[in-house]
């Protein structure tokens, strides 16, 4: 294992979600990207190791299911690998990777919602990974309620909420990822909080 790879793992290990958004600024991954575009496959592995945890956490908060999140995290890097040869670096690598992850998550939840809808008309109802009966075994009532509340948010509000609350990204960074204005993302976040407040009101104490 190369020295840079070990260094990368160590850096990744010590990263905290709050502080590292600055790191994703354009240019921080240039070295690996250049090496990869010259044909060095190990450079791609380094990028995977650097971002796998954050991408997994982001997808997990979007789809609210561990097994699906694991699968979608791998899929994100596969898509990144395929698209990376044509990556023009108009945005940072992390911004671009986040877009892939969010799109995959949104498409996945849309598909799952459609399947759940179709299964309503099916006598032999398929067991979905996100069904409450399965989640009963893994989480308590509050966690399930949060899952349901977050999943009920419209895609844009859910993306903004996940990026802001869980990933601690600044609104400017969120706006860049989503290709929206900063004011628009603030408004989406405010709307998301308003809806969550309503849906989780029964857990309020005092």
């Amino acid at each position: 294992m190369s020295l840079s790879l070990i260094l990368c793992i160590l850096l990744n290990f010590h990263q905290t979600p709050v502080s590292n958004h600055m790191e994703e600024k354009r240019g921080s991954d240039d070295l690996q990207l250049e090496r990869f575009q010259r044909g060095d496959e190990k450079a791609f592995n380094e990028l995977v190791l650097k971002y796998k945890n954050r991408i997994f956490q982001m997808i997990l908060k979007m789809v609210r299911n561990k097994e699906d999140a694991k699968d979608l995290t791998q899929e994100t890097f596969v898509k990144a690998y395929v698209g990376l040869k044509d990556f023009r670096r108009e945005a940072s690598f992390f911004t671009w990777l986040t877009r892939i992850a969010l799109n995959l998550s949104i498409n996945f939840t849309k598909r799952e919602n459609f399947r759940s809808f179709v299964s309503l008309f099916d006598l032999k109802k398929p067991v979905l990974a996100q069904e409450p009966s399965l989640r009963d075994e893994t989480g308590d009532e509050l966690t399930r309620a949060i899952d349901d509340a977050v999943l009920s948010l419209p895609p844009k509000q859910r993306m903004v909420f996940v990026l802001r609350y869980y990933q601690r990204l600044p609104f400017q960074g969120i706006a860049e990822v989503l290709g929206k204005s900063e004011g628009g993302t603030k408004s989406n976040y405010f709307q998301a909080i308003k809806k969550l407040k309503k849906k989780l009101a029964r857990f309020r104490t005092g």
Partner: protein
Amino acid sequence: MKGKSEMTCTKIKELLVGYHDESLSIEEKKKVEDHLRICEGCREELRQIESLFGILGREKTEEVEPDFWTNFVPGVRKRIVRAAQPTFGWSFVPKLGPLFGFVTAVLIVGVILFSSDYRSSDRGVPQSGEDVVYSLYEFESTADQLAETISLIEAAGQTGELISEDEKQSILALEELIEDEYWEKAGWKDLAEELSLEELSLLEEKIQKTPI
């Protein structure tokens, strides 16, 4: 005054989330704090927001098995190799879309044309006497009418139906009409070809005896 106050509350409420996570500018923060001192409604709103983040903070975190991360990069690599392999899929369908569209259009036009031909050929074999009486007015010449009537007779014979006396009379009348129609169109040459030698010589005699 009440309207103005409500508008201020609406704006302040939008800033309360930012106030809670300390992302407001100094000016905005001061504006919120000044308002909170005098507004119980917005203080209650802030309490609710704090309560929500308290609830969200109690969410259980999911633990991932360590071997998932150990095998993560090899797993991604395997999927990359699999993605690069040519597989049979339906991705060619959009490319062939125009061709499918053209074939479908040809089939639809074919079905329409065939069915219209079929319908018009049906008209040649009427199924009942009523059909014939109704359709007599549609034919262009007497010969067509007769052909139709003969079809009726054949069809009636096949199905065991009897021809009424009226229908027989109409057939005879049609035959006479055909004779007249034919001779109206025919010239002397056609007439001569129709006559036997005896009839022809008889006709010559009559012509010669006819006073001019």
